[in-house]
């Protein structure tokens, strides 16, 4: 019984599923990769580390040494009373204020907290608007034009009630590059 079930459920089933998935949804099955001029620049579902001022940045990440390492996913696992949590949050806030001196909206919560996966591909719309003046200045763009890009790349709640509104950072940065390389 054990051997038979391993063959049916452990081998045939995943092989059939992979075959069907590769035929029906090859793009998603292979990791939703995004290409620019034939070069793979990332996956639309996996967040990346962004540091340059002309790009929008994602959230703090606890995945791997530098963050955003898909081979080492996870959060900080700091509890609400953790001194390390409060200290690192304070440092993150200070760094954000230094990088974004001209921000016009308050710092949103998602920009100072690490995600559960460490590879969160999204930020809240407010987190994008917060960074817009910095990005606009680095690219010598109008803040209004950057805000428009954010609005166009904002995804609402699914069916109006599932999840939260969000902006995919890679998608937004690609749109930026397309608007003003």
């Amino acid at each position, binding site marked *: 019984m054990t051997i038979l079930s391993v063959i049916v459920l452990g081998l045939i089933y995943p092989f059939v*599923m992979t075959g069907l998935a590769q035929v029906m949804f090859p793009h998603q099955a292979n990791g939703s990769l995004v290409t620019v001029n034939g070069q793979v620049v990332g996956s639309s579902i996996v967040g990346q580390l962004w*540091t340059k001022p002309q790009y929008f940045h994602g959230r703090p990440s606890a995945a791997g040494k530098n963050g955003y390492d898909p081979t080492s996913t996870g959060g900080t696992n700091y509890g609400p009373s953790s001194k390390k949590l409060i200290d690192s949050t304070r440092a993150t806030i200070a760094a954000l204020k230094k990088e974004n001196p001209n921000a016009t909206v308050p710092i949103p919560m998602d920009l100072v907290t690490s995600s*559960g996966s460490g*590879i969160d591909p999204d930020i809240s719309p407010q987190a994008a608007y917060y960074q817009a003046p910095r990005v606009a200045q680095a690219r010598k763009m109008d803040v209004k034009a950057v805000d428009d890009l954010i609005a166009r790349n904002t995804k609402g709640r699914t069916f109006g009630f599932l*999840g*939260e509104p969000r902006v995919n950072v890679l998608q937004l940065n*690609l749109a930026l590059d397309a608007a003003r390389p």
Partner: protein
Amino acid sequence: MTAIGWLQAIIFFLVVLALTKPLGLYMTRVFSGERTWFSPVLVPVERFIYRLSGVNPDEEMPWYGYAFCVLAFSLVSLVYLYVLLRTQKWLPLNPQHFDNMTPDLAWNTAVSFMTNTNWQFYSGESTMSYLSQMAGLAWHNFVSAAAGIAVALAVIRGVIRTSGKTLGNFWVDLTRASLYILLPASIAVGLFLVSQGVPQNFAAYQTIHTLEGTAQTITGGPIGSQEIIKELGTNGGGFVNANSASPNENPSPLTNFIEMLLILVIGAALTYVYGRMAKNTKQGWALFSAMSILFFVGFTVVYAAEAAGNPLVHQLGVAGANLEGKETRFGAAASALFATVTTDTSCGAVNAAHDSFMALGGLVPIVNMQLGEIVFGGVGSGLYGMIIFVVLTVFIAGLMVGRTPELLGKKIERREVQFAILAALVTPILVLVPTAVAAVTPAGLATLNNAGPHGFSEILYAFTSTNANNGSAFAGLSPNLFYNIATGLNMLFGRFLIIVPALALAGTLAGKKAVAEGAGTFTTYSPVFVALLIGVIVIVGALTFLPADALGPVVEHLLVNQGKTF
């Protein structure tokens, strides 16, 4: 809290409610051996499996025979997974060339999956070959869930049968649960998950360069086929360390909604199966109502705590809900709902870091597991756990009014109560004793991620979760030899010290004559009974743990509000 957050929870509940009857009807047909949709394809497969493995499908087993088969099958599957994990280096489908697992971690992982716990001390993306994932972990996801459903079926039969002493055939129940319920749903919904972005491939990880020129490794694997059964079988062991928080397992709010549904739906449907088989669907709906009330109480507390946010962070000048350890696409509401669902059942998948929940937000998952995960519950284990509480409730109610307690017309006597009490005592002993031991030994304290009361909560959560076969974690606690062995033993005892008394209880009930319902009968489907049942669950289940829960989450809650950190 927002109206939209609540709307999400309410619509979710309504969908579960709507699915309970149709799925329950279908499952009743499957386990009564009646024809279903899939029969033309699956009956020949089923017969072939019985012939090849020498099972006589018409042979019925007494409770001890049934229990023996459960134990024997579990032992074989435990050894199989252990060997697979210890030899994966030499086996195919290992493009990352991961090494064999260490003995203590392999033991912990093998027990974890065999008992349907899926406690994650391993990190899938950096330790598991694709073969270990699909033929080891995902396979266990199917069969440990099917074994749970089988036991629930046997217990139901014991409660309703009035002649004979048998409870059904374990091999038939196991095969039917896998083939007719878990497999078709996995194929259909698994492909849907892939269409939403969950990867499904055998490719090696690839390195890409971002627009900024930074290198990043993109992982892959047969994730979709494993993700679906991880939820449907209330297993919860992630393909990757971050589990359903990872966009590779759970890429969108829609997949999140579907995954939560998968976790709850079989447990909910089993209440209908129970009512249907007892020839009184009100019996099933009474259990469903009690479960629903506990579900909403739990969700309300978690959601309120998470939406209110962390006052210590607010003091730094940033307002909003607690998003530490949560994904942007889910936010506070969907994370609170997932945490409630995954601990109401024995699933233990997580879409956010429970360790970083607010103190009271993290308290609810702990309490849910301490109650025995009977709120819809794990596939099978929820229902047989709930039936144990039902037996206790009719007994206590009978004592209160001085009447012989009855369940479905059968007298509840000394032996039944003894078995029920035995099962009810297992949880507190196996949670509190090891927690106390870990809290005073260097090995138990060595790998905590947090100090102060939250560190204690990490230990309490670990033993609560492994004993309840949940598998979610305050994941800051890292594995060491002590925890690998102790939590491994805890999972074993937690599963089988409930299963065996539950089957024994069913066995003694199976032979009893049922007397017709009369004017003096205390009905087990009235609102009064539902209220009593909830009372017994809370008193028996929760009060034992109150001191421990107070030392961890409650103390932390009070201290955070006073601005204290550790």
